[in-house]
């Protein structure tokens, strides 16, 4: 019980710290993912260091090393989930937008043409090309976009999953 409460508390503190840093906007981090990982790592390390200093042993949680491992096994996936959810928040999901757009019409419904009016290339595709340029996945040379090494790596990384599961990419 102590480990569960400790794990939940430390996650909650990390999330609150991140929220505060976010709202204060006084951070040197340009990358949101790096900021989250930094805040979570700092909180976890601070928790262990303070516990070790007060109890004069690093194994201050019940179960000793296994207790620390249990906290880590809880904390790291929750941190990764938080990162993924936060990144997903910044982009508006086209599928959810379509469903909500149809929902707004109530009994009237929506035609395909109406749906195409809210989701255009300028809103959805072109900004993503710019983000890939900014992140270094592609570069712009001689008026053409070409993939970089980083872009190839990401593509191969994700393509491995496709091959393993025998599924096709749709977009």
């Amino acid at each position: 019980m102590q480990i569960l409460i400790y794990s939940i508390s430390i996650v909650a503190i990390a999330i609150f710290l991140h929220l505060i840093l976010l709202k204060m906007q006084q951070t040197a981090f340009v990358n949101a993912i790096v900021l989250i990982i930094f805040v979570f790592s700092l909180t976890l390390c601070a928790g262990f260091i303070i516990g070790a200093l007060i109890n004069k042993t690093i194994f201050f949680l019940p179960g000793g090393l296994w207790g620390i491992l249990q906290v880590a096994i809880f904390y790291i996936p929750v941190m990764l989930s938080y990162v993924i959810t936060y990144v997903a928040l910044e982009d508006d999901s086209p599928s959810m937008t379509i469903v909500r757009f149809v929902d707004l019409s109530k009994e009237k419904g929506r035609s395909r043409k109406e749906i195409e009016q809210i989701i255009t290339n300028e809103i959805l595709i072109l900004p993503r090309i710019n983000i890939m340029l900014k992140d270094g996945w592609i570069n712009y040379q001689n008026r053409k976009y070409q993939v970089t090494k980083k872009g190839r790596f990401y593509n191969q990384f994700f393509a491995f999953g496709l091959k393993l599961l025998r599924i096709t990419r749709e977009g």
Partner: protein
Amino acid sequence: MLGNYALLVLAPILGMTSNIFVHILVSRFNQGRSQIKCLIFGFVFGLVCIVVLSLAANYRQVNSLDFVAYLLSGCIAYSALAYVYFHFININIASLRIRILQEVIDCPDGLTQEGILSRYNVKQMLDNRIDRLVDSKQLMLQQNIYYLGSNRTFLILFWFFEALKFIFLGRGNRLLSVTCQQTGSFDLLLGALWLNQFFRFLCIGAINTIFGYCAYALLVILGIDYRISLTVSTTLAVLFNYYTNGRFVFRNSGKKVLMKFVLSNLIMYIFNQSLLIILVSAGLGKLVSQAAIIPVVIIVSFIINKRWVFFKGKL
């Protein structure tokens, strides 16, 4: 005993491994089946593995609170891992960026912007997405008009993410608010409620209470004396309360406001303490007295914060 504890601790990892294994098997040998169903199948299998492993490791103490805590911890960790895995699979299938990247890679000489759009554009994206939404019954098609389907999962997810966007980013869905000319994403009951300051005060108050308790629990578990833990966590909670109330509820801040906030908390503490002593002396039980006082404290606290602490104009 050590072996059993190790099994309890590693249960989420073992559960996730079995989840991935089963998902790959089902996906490879049942092509044509929806990926969501394959993922759910794998998730449930992994969850069952965790419960079985946990029971096998601790079958003598199934009724103990500690066992429940271990199981809950394992299930939360496993669910988080499964969530990460789901997104890894979903990115492969549905990510626009990955799809665009694939089109650029397929052309060794590179692509112009028009070239990219000719190979992959919004029309194709909508074809894929709308087909998937109709297949999964999120939408239904009747006489070339789309209506909401019987499956409301995406709609529920929309509102969940809207709430998170509001908290983290201070905005809602941009596609709808810009193109539909809505005044805001929260145009239903939740939105109307959030515009109400007292509702925001209650929500933020609940979050502040969780923060205060988590800070206290953390300090106690770290080995700090419970009285010192309470003092430190209360101090942190007051600062946190000041920030969240100033930012989200009353939209006002500053050094003067902070001093007034600290003073108002002290006043509320004395008020609470006095009322509690009176009620307990009158014969009302200690627990019932404080439970009865809480709504009064909330209302008085809201009025003091609104009319004095965070007040911007002239009284």
